[in-house]
């Protein structure tokens, strides 16, 4: 009886580790979707601005680069959570 309980406890522990890994991967994947959409919006609008006003391309590129970098910070937060959760 004790052997069966010990085996069940070991299997439950392994399952928890597995679920942690699945949760970490899922969380990272979901966290990367938002910045992907955000970067698409930033670059799309920047391209639109550059096409309408080519003379302001430099300023638009500066703002675009900073916008991309700020949006990427969200993905990095997801990445940090991923490495902290990973068993």
């Amino acid at each position, binding site marked *: 009886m004790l052997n069966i309980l010990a085996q069940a406890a070991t299997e439950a522990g392994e399952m928890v580790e597995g679920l942690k890994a699945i949760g970490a991967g899922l969380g990272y994947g979901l966290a990367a979707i938002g910045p992907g959409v955000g970067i698409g919006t930033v670059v799309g609008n920047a*391209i639109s601005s550059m096409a309408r006003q080519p*003379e302001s391309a430099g300023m638009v590129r*500066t703002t675009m*680069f900073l916008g991309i*970098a700020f949006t990427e910070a969200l993905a990095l937060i997801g990445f*940090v959570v991923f490495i902290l959760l990973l068993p």
Partner: protein
Amino acid sequence: MLIKQKTEEKIVGSVSEQPEKRIANHLALRALWVSPLFLILSAIGWGLGGIVSALLALILVSFNFLAGAAIITRTVKISLNMLYGSVLGGYVVRLAILTGVVLSVRSFDWFKTVPFAMTLLVTHLGLLATETRHISASLAYPDLKPTSSEEIR
């Protein structure tokens, strides 16, 4: 087609230097300046492993900025469609590189997750906030800044 070509030529021609490259170089340089602070903090808390982990995070943050800027600089000369595709593709590739590097080193004893994560996030956000402040203070991106009073109307 001709209008599109002319517009793209104008865009490329209107920018004397690549602003994103300059910003990325500036960010990397600032990362170098603030690195002793993070290295000392990591050394106090986690020892040699903490130093190496914080150093790895600083290198990855700098690489991320420089690679992002290089992609924009290279592709804006080709076409705007290429820029769009490359920035989105580059985002995925850069995240994959970051994940690959960390997953390959995390099994080593010297890798400490907490100093790495702390340095990665704080440096990325801190450097960006400082750079935004720096750019906003000049009220124009460096290449558009008026050089003489005649240019100001």
